[in-house]
């Protein structure tokens, strides 16, 4: 079961960065998040799994999809042939792909050296009540900071995405 979810997650993530059309990328990423949610259930974290589906797949990805459709620019305009393999492309892009590959190999190598067997012990914390109590006592301060972060992000998004009305007004007044 783990291997099924892992294969879906890796395959969908690979297809996300292989697609040219961002709409397909977003939809494939939702599939990848679904597989990760299944992995969270297998890790005895059902609450995280549900939150993953509702918040990530339901809210954040819909936001992405909304922007993709709003901008209506499905295709990348690039000066080279998109079908060429990234490692064969010129210049910094080849370096970037090599760096990413190197990072993956390095992480796998470091994990392969780990001596512990890493078998999961019994007695996992699955109860939502325990998580909630810890969130509102031990982690109360980060929780409140998070709420301020969301407020700032909300205001920032509104300000950034707004049309520059002051300049529009000046332009109209000048004519």
């Amino acid at each position: 079961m783990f291997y099924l979810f892992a294969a879906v997650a890796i395959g969908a993530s690979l297809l996300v960065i292989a697609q040219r059309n961002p709409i397909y990328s977003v939809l494939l990423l939702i599939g990848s998040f679904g597989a990760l949610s299944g992995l969270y259930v297998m890790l005895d974290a059902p609450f995280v799994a549900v939150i993953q589906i509702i918040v990530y797949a339901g809210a954040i990805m819909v936001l992405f999809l909304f922007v993709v459709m709003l901008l209506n620019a499905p295709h990348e305009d690039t000066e080279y042939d998109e079908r060429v393999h990234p490692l064969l492309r010129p210049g910094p892009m080849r370096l970037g792909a090599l760096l990413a590959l190197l990072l993956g190999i390095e992480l796998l190598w470091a994990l392969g050296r780990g001596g512990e067997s890493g078998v999961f012990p019994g007695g996992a914390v699955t109860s939502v009540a325990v998580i909630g109590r810890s969130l509102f006592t031990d982690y109360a301060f980060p929780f409140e900071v998070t709420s301020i972060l969301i407020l700032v992000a909300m205001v920032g998004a509104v300000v950034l995405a707004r049309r520059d009305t002051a300049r529009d007004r000046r332009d109209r007044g000048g004519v």
Partner: protein
Amino acid sequence: MVTLNHYLILSAILFAIGTAGVFVRRNLITILLSIEIMLNAVNLTFVAFGRALGSADGQIIVFFVMTVAAAEAAVGLAIVISLFRHKESLNPDSFASLKW
């Protein structure tokens, strides 16, 4: 028998895929999606370690990471929209003048 190492290796692979996406793609929205892949790989590591240590802390950190991801997506997409209004393009190479 699926052990902690399996989850960590899967997480490493996903993180490397996300990194490759950031480097290889020339589309601002796909770059943001690759960052989401990387954040999810880290989330998987947190939950796996929390399960291995038998504590709820890993799951709580995941909530904070998700909140930061939501804030990042909102602000990032707002920046993408306003950049698109300027240049009618999503290619980061067309914003090279921001470097100077």
